[in-house]
């Protein structure tokens, strides 16, 4: 392996832990835990009530009867920490205020300081509390709000309350209920009418306590004619205890607004990653979900767009790379509720070793959605004989003018392609990586440059020694 790649290989293991003692750590899933979380955050009474009600709903809702095996998780629910508060006195305003250990962690994560300064705002989440958060002055001047979800509730309560849990209520599914009860951390974004945010808003998430479940909650409101790109990347150090991540992301795309949400998860392979991501798109609006799933033991994540206004559009582009011990159950949903709405789903999955990747999706066209158009493309690449892939696309169409298409293919790493590249002097591993990159290209070309570079390097590492 080239020296440079070795360094990256080490980086991608993330198996380091910082010596930061938490101020408060709450274990177990009880009303007391929920009350203490709310108290520690100094929340208004309505939020405490909301959380407690959500916990009751969580108890009542059934576990999913489909999809990956969650039996181990079921038994471990009470062993997780539901809230961990690191020892800082609130979000740091500048890089200098960020504690040394945490800075070290970021350095090891490979986020150069210079890059952070270039980026519009970096909301870096250290466990539950946002410890570092900077928003360029210009964004402030434009009236863009980019703060932690906690600050959002504190400083913009009225706006917050108007949107919070309106798209993903606790009753939506068991994990949304869990998140609603114990949520902590995440971003609150508001882009005022007509404002186009040129640089992506970027947040890094890290989970750092053994057996700790992270329950981030993000609320993004893109007002009329506004434009924003939000990027979330996640990673966590490796621990032996099974960890849980249950996020809820709600995005409101107003008339003619334009929103992009990019996330690449590379959680360690003992993590349960169960996320609800949903956008509501009004007339002429556009929502793009770009979803990369590389890590975790089990992922269940189906970004959804509700196309509510005439001419609303959405695209969902996703990548899944499942290795031995991983079951990545991902997909997308397009709900067409208005005329002339359109959507596209492109899903590319790779299964290696005994890895299993599943596509699960829904395209629904209501009787009112005249001339709705949607196209779904799912391609699966299988590297080894024991690799697995599934496709479960649901199409429910109640309008005779709709045009809906779905295509899926399953193929393997082709011998003839490998052979051809080898005859041109390209070593086998590199050839395999090249083929995989080509397979993913329709999605990766939409990625921000630094993500695309990282992803390509990661694929090179993953493909090393996997053929021949």
């Amino acid at each position, binding site marked *: 392996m080239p020296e440079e790649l070795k360094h990256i290989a080490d980086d991608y293991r993330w198996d380091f832990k910082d010596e930061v003692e938490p101020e408060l750590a709450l274990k177990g899933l009880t009303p007391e835990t929920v009350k203490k979380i709310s108290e520690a955050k100094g929340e208004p009474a309505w939020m405490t009530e909301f959380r407690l009600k959500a916990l009751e709903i969580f108890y009542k809702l059934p576990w999913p009867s489909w999809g990956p095996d969650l039996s181990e998780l079921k038994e471990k629910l009470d062993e997780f920490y539901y809230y961990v508060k690191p020892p800082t006195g609130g979000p740091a305003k500048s890089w200098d205020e960020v504690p040394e250990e945490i800075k070290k962690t970021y350095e090891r994560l490979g986020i150069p300081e210079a890059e952070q300064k270039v980026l519009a705002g970096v909301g870096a989440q250290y466990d539950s509390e946002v410890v570092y958060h900077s928003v360029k002055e210009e964004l402030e001047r434009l009236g863009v709000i980019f703060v932690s979800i906690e600050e959002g509730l504190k400083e913009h309560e009225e706006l917050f309350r108007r949107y919070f849990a309106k798209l993903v209520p606790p009753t939506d599914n068991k994990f949304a209920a869990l998140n609603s009860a114990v949520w902590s951390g995440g971003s609150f974004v508001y882009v005022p009418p007509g404002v186009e945010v040129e640089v992506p808003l970027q947040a890094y998430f890290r989970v750092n306590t053994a057996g700790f479940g992270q329950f981030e909650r993000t609320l993004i409101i893109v007002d009329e004619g506004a434009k924003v790109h939000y990027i979330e990347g996640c990673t966590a150090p490796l621990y032996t205890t099974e960890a849980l991540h249950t996020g809820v992301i709600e995005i409101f795309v107003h008339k003619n607004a334009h929103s992009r949400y990019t996330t690449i998860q590379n959680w360690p392979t003992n993590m349960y990653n169960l996320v609800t991501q949903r956008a509501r798109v009004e007339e002429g609006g556009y929502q793009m979900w770009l979803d990369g799933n590389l890590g975790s033991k089990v992922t269940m994540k189906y970004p959804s767009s509700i196309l509510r206004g005439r001419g609303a559009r959405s695209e969902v582009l996703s990548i899944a790379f499942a290795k031995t011990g991983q079951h990545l159950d991902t997909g997308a949903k397009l709900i067409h509720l208005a005329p002339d709405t359109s959507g596209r789903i492109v899903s590319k999955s790779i299964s290696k070793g005994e890895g299993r990747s599943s596509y699960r999706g829904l395209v629904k066209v209501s009787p009112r959605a005249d001339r709705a158009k949607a196209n779904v493309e799912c391609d699966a690449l*299988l590297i080894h004989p*024991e690799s697995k892939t599934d496709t479960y696309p649901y199409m429910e169409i109640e309008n005779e003018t709709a045009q809906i298409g779905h295509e899926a293919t399953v193929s393997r790493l082709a011998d003839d392609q490998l052979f051809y590249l080898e005859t041109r002097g390209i070593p086998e591993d590199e050839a395999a990586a090249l083929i995989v990159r080509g397979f993913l290209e329709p999605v990766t070309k939409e990625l921000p440059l630094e993500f695309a570079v990282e992803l390509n390097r990661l694929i090179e590492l993953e493909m090393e020694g996997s053929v021949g």
Partner: protein
Amino acid sequence: MMTVSALDLETPLSALDEPAWLKEEREAARALFARLPWPTAKDESWRYAAGRLKSVPFDWPLALPRGKTLQKEELPEAVRERLKGAEYAGLLVFLGADLAYAELDGDLKEKGVLFTGLLEAARRHPERVRESLYRAVPAKDGKLPALMAAAWTHGAFLYLPKGLEEPRPFFAFFLHEEGTLSVGRTLAVLEEGARASYVEEHLGEGAHLAASELFLRPAAHLVHAHVQTQGEKSYHLYRQRALLEKDTGLRDLTVNLGADFARAEVGSELLGPGADSEMLGVYFAAGRQHHDHDTLQHHKSPQARSDVYYKGVAKDEGTIVYQGLIRLEPGAQKTDAYQTNRNLLLNRGARAESVPKLEIAANDVRCSHGSSIAPIDEEELFYLRTRGFSKESAENLLVAAFLEDVLGRIPLKDLADHLARVIEEKVFREPLLAEKGR
């Protein structure tokens, strides 16, 4: 949900003249039926059909044999019409649960071909029936398969000995009677290298449950069709499983045109290399009809091939549903498996659900599926109108063109022509929405 209590079945079924082993099998199935839960919308396969299942009158009296027979010249008009000019190797006509008429080419009879009622065969050729019965559609598959296994009273049995090739089709007609619940079962066994065509048509009224078990021993080839054109106040629940051994070929066709609620579960198990299963489907739901389909291509062996091609049309407030699964077991290398579902909606109120699924556990395979739901092309319609076609004629032409690539693949021309006529009738029929003034 309507219930069929264990008692409802016991008395009528105990009167059937059949061997003791079969009575025992039924008894076991009946116990299983009593124990298993009814399917609900939470069962993926019943996601869109569970609601309509509740409307099936399982409390209607069970159709039982009454010893009714017919002479050839007494055959019902519909059957005579269908046979006009057709050449066939054998013919069975069922009226309710009675095998009313049976005919088999004398030459074939001598060569060991069996084509008779399943109940009759269980009495006269128990060894032939017993070795295969319930092997493809066992009672344990679920509530309805258990009911089908426990309560069948009639159906066809086709047996072709080793190496026998018969080019003429075998026909079976089932005329179901109003206000009855009838349960039929068909068993077809083709020994090594045998070749045959078998077509089963369901007409009439009532609520009918049908199970078909198809056995293709090595190198056997079967053309098989299950055609349902029952009245629109009737019900039809069908489950078919074919077991394909090495180098076999199945050309299968499922047609749902009639019934208020019709459901077909059609599956092929590919058990040996060189097995090849082609499964075609055609359906057209008008009025408030619901046509539900669930296909399975189960590859247990390497080097087999399967292809599903289902096409549906919905009009008025009709609902068409397609669910299908390609499942490749570990080791099913060098598989070719394809699945295509196309849907056409003719007006507001009609709906289509399409769920083509893949579960793949082998890598050296070629698998793909495609599904589409699209309206009638306005430009094509406009073009035909400018050439003087009425709206209905133009639509009919476009519906016929849409279904042509499935109907065109039916190897029996008479059958294809007959189906085209039934479809045409449906297109031309007054739209339901117009009647309601909407």
